[in-house]
């Protein structure tokens, strides 16, 4: 396969892509072939060095389906910023927190109940003694 045949095959393979993506891909492969020719390879050898057609198709498919890498710090920051405005998570938290507080208050009433009760009695006693 020579350079033109190869590039034509790549263009056919990527005909579903937006034009700028196809052009980007064609520029890339054309550059790679030119580089190998500059190093002394023939056109056919240069094309053969790119790998088997099968491998090239696999790589193109891989690129078409792959998302930008998630671990990249720039991408990470973006997803972090989006989290607080997630509408599904927020309301659930607002309801569950007061309910949890009420349940905890009732459950721990034997502990603080006695304190509140004795304080109440003390205040009552003071008020009563002042009035009398």
């Amino acid at each position, binding site marked *: 396969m020579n350079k033109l045949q190869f590039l034509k095959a790549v263009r056919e393979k990527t005909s579903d892509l937006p034009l700028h993506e196809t052009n980007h891909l064609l520029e890339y*492969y054309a*550059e*790679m072939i030119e580089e190998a020719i500059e190093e002394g390879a023939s056109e056919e050898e240069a094309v053969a060095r790119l790998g088997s057609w099968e491998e090239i198709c696999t790589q193109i498919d891989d690129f078409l389906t792959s998302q930008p890498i998630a671990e*990249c710090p720039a*991408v990470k920051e973006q997803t972090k910023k989006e989290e607080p405005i997630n509408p599904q998570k927020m309301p659930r938290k607002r309801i569950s927190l007061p309910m949890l507080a009420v349940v905890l208050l009732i459950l721990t009433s034997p502990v603080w109940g006695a304190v509140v009760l004795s304080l109440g009695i003390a205040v009552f006693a003071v008020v009563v003694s002042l009035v009398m």
Partner: protein
Amino acid sequence: MDIQLKRGLLDVCVLAAIKNKDSYGYAIVREIGEFVSISESTLYPILRRLEAADCLTLYSVEHNGRLRKYYRITDAGRARLSAFAEEWKEILAIYQFVIKEEEEHE
């Protein structure tokens, strides 16, 4: 080698190849090729992914009457390289542990 692991390794290999000076596709393949098997067609999706993730930028330079694309690492790309170095300290520790366990069972 596991495909996901190799993909991640190739990403950082490419970033490492342009860490100190900008480079172009053919030279990157030659440089990394000494350590891992990589072809020109394997490099393409890696470069595009790294570009989409803002880990590198590219610009064209005229060379022998045609254009050659150069790749330059960004701050995000450098951050990713440091993160990789940190992660691998942990992985190395785990490796040492696994190897030790295996030796004790032999």
